[in-house]
């Protein structure tokens, strides 16, 4: 059991740091150009990249890659980092796996998508509260965060005022 636990722990560290490192270097490479920016080989991917660059969405994705990649690489707010990165991973998955004509690009997109799903499963219990069916508002600007009840005033002054 302890061997399996150790394997699980180190495998998840590898997957988290791999995905974080990949996104961080991909994001930083856009801004600092350590290597030439990879451009999709297929016409659909190239057109998509051209349009998203024009709209500024490509640049936004690169900022998300840097933020999410740093989060995963250093283990800081990992559940939030995974949420930040998911739109990027999903887009890259569709572009790479279904449109690229290069096998190593297809494998790269599919692998990162699998790694992302594994990490989402590994951190799933942080997301379960989001599945609340009936969710009253809990504003960040209200102390305690609870929604005040309109029908049952809590304070004595409230009761006098209402009565």
């Amino acid at each position, binding site marked *: 059991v302890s061997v399996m636990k150790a394997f699980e722990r180190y495998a998840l560290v590898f997957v988290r740091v791999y995905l974080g490192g990949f996104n961080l270097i991909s994001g930083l490479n856009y801004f600092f150009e350590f290597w030439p920016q990879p451009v999709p080989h297929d016409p659909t991917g190239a057109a998509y990249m051209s349009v998203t660059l024009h709209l500024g969405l490509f640049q936004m994705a690169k900022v998300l890659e840097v933020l999410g990649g740093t989060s995963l690489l250093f283990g800081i707010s990992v559940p939030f980092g995974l949420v930040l990165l998911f739109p990027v991973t999903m887009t890259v998955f569709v572009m790479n796996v279904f449109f*690229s004509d290069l096998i190593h*690009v297809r494998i790269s997109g599919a692998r990162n998508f699998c790694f992302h799903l594994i990490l989402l499963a590994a951190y799933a219990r942080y997301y379960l509260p989001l599945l609340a069916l009936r969710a009253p508002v809990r504003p960040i600007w209200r102390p305690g965060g609870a929604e005040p009840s309109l029908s049952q005033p809590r304070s004595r002054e409230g009761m006098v005022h209402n009565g």
Partner: protein
Amino acid sequence: MVDLTNPSPLVMTHFELVAFTAGLLGVVVTVIFDRATHYWDRHGRK
């Protein structure tokens, strides 16, 4: 500005190499940290 006329998809493998190295280093650092914590728990301050 990105040169869209110059497809260079092999750079992807550069990213993968960096990511793989980072992943391995992450595991090594975590193993060392775990061993050190274990040793400290057994032989450290009582």
